[in-house]
């Protein structure tokens, strides 16, 4: 009986591993889009910070420094985005797209120039990464059936960033819904004129929001290259930023539902990998591509209003000008 639970437990375990970068990025997206700035550039910021994290860690030997470098890089990309679409009132989608393509070209070119390994960074040793943390009392409760395994495999034994991502969700929820800053942030995304009339700078609010988004994307990137992985590989983010964007829409720009959307999409991917080549009763083999496409299909269906309605913040995509 207990043996048959093992596949489920390992499935949940990989769900959490896969979902972590999605959660960081989706929370980043919430901060940015709730303030009225479309963030297509999640993917690029994650890719850039993954590269910078691995490079800085390799050069300094310290994953902590790598993490900070990643956040710095991602925030710089955020600032470019802000300069283009807050200060210069440029198109937010075009700016985000530029960041994604820039990140793609920049990481490969810099990687080749620095390491001559076809765009990869050198592999990192165990002491240069965020390693799994084993919770205390593991031995004491390991005899408990089901719960013991669940605790050991699913809850315990992840790296620091996995736990940080869960914290990030509560942080996002708290900041956006329970603080004055969050109230203003949401107002800036819905009716910037009103906020401006109240004497609060729309520009400043939006810059602050996208910088927080930058930090969160930096964490996502660092997770990919110096926690989950051991080094950077080209195009490492592999569309995760877009899945996070989809998860954010699926969660209707709310942190807690978005968390579940990320877990759902992570679960679908884990399940797809798990089911590859497996013949299911009555159904036969499920193509892995169906699992890969499902998050996007679900998001399209949701956006079309067939299952509930996802409504974006009111002023999203509209540059704010004081004069009108």
């Amino acid at each position, binding site marked *: 009986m207990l043996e048959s639970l093992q596949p489920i437990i390992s499935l949940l375990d990989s769900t959490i591993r896969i979902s972590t970068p999605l959660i960081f990025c989706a929370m980043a997206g919430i901060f940015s889009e709730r303030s009225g700035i479309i963030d*297509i550039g999640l993917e690029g910021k994650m890719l850039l910070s993954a590269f910078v994290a691995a490079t800085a860690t390799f050069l300094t030997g310290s994953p902590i420094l790598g993490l900070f470098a990643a956040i710095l890089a991602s925030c710089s990309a955020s600032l470019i985005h802000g300069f283009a679409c807050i200060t210069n009132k440029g198109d937010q989608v*075009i700016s985000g797209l530029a960041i994604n393509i*820039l990140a*793609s070209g920049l990481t490969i070119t810099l990687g080749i120039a620095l390491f*001559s390994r076809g765009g990869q960074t050198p592999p990192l040793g165990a002491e240069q990464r965020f390693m799994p943390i084993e919770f205390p009392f593991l031995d004491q409760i390991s005899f408990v059936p089901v719960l013991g395994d669940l605790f050991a495999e699913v809850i315990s034994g992840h790296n620091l960033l996995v736990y940080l991502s869960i914290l990030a969700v509560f942080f996002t929820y708290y900041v956006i819904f329970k603080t004055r800053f969050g109230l203003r942030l949401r107002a800036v995304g819905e009716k910037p004129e009103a906020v401006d009339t109240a004497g609060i700078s729309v520009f400043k609010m939006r810059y602050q929001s996208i910088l927080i988004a930058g930090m969160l994307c930096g964490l996502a990137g660092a997770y990919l290259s110096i926690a989950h992985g051991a080094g950077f590989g080209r195009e490492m983010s592999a569309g995760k930023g*877009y899945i996070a964007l989809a998860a954010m829409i699926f969660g209707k720009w709310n942190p807690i539902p978005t968390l579940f959307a990320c877990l759902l999409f992570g679960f679908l991917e884990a399940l797809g990998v798990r089911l590859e080549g497996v013949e299911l009763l009555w159904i036969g083999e499920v193509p892995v*591509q169906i699992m890969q496409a499902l998050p996007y299909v679900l998001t399209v269906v949701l956006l079309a209003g067939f299952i509930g309605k996802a409504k974006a913040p009111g002023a999203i995509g509209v540059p704010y000008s004081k004069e009108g």
Partner: protein
Amino acid sequence: MSDSNIIPKWLSVGVIPLLNLLLAFCVSGLFIFFIGENPFKAISVMIKGAFYYPGAIGYTLYYTTNFIFTGLAVALAFHARLFNIGGEGQAYIGGLGVGLTCLIFDQYLAGFLVTILAILGSVIFGAVWGIIPGYLQAKRGSHIVITTIMFNFIAAALMVYLLVNVIIEPGQMSPETRDFASGVGLVQIHMLAKYLGLNMAMSPLNLSFGIALIVSVGFWFLVWRTKFGYEVRSLGHSETAAIYAGIKVSYTIIIVMAISGGLAGLVAINELLGVHNKLLLGFTAGYGFTGIAVALMGRNHPFGIFLASLLFGALYQGGTELDFEFSSITREMVLLIQGLIILFSGALAYMLNPLVENIYIKYYGNYNNA
């Protein structure tokens, strides 16, 4: 976004875009300098690679062909103020149209007939992949940017599935269909030249280039010389005004997205009918995204798009030459340049306007009052 009306048109449509492009190149050059190579040497290598070597121009124009198609696709949608990021997926599905047509008919029909059907197939399949997001935008209010992004990924998953499991050549390992029958396909220009007794270096340039030029003229006619084009542009300027003018907004959006998808689908004729002669994985290679840069640079006008496509064609072809000449810079440098061009010519397109306006007013006074 609108062009300035304080300064004359030649400044806002001619000089400022060129300055933006120059900025993008300067930043690229600085970057090359910082990684320890000579930017001027890189430029000369790229120019030689794109125009000088035998066959180089053919390669450049072959890439240009792809960019004309995807650039026009993005531009038409822009005229209706729709942002079609889905060119990549539409081109990919267009390839499915070409592949299926050829695989089904090439045993029964004459080669040129199959080729014509395959061209239609690329347009129709691409159009379908544009119509769905168009319909969802027009009738269900889904944001077209998000839907087209999602459709790129759905297209990629669908094509991998079909190529790996369904239409792969039996007994083959790599995910490709069998070759199309001989006689199917668009003839390459150097073969045509040989037939006419001229000697041209080999290159993948094929009749698709001619089709691209004809389509460009058709695009100009459609947008600026027909009732439909007028409706599209009105919709792009003001949806409210368009509604008052009795333009059917939903219908127009759907048709625009259909044509846009069809244009992107034409990339498949250049790649599959002109070069590969079979359907294979990932043949779109980012051309759909480059189309966005092309449309932005070309200011959504076919002539501008032709020039921008030529530039990107030269960058792509010249970029491959970087691999041979340098150890530390490669063709991916072109991605970086592309990103910078989208940033400066797209997102920061109007950054220089106030500066140029001030200089102009200082020396010539206000243009409109003059």
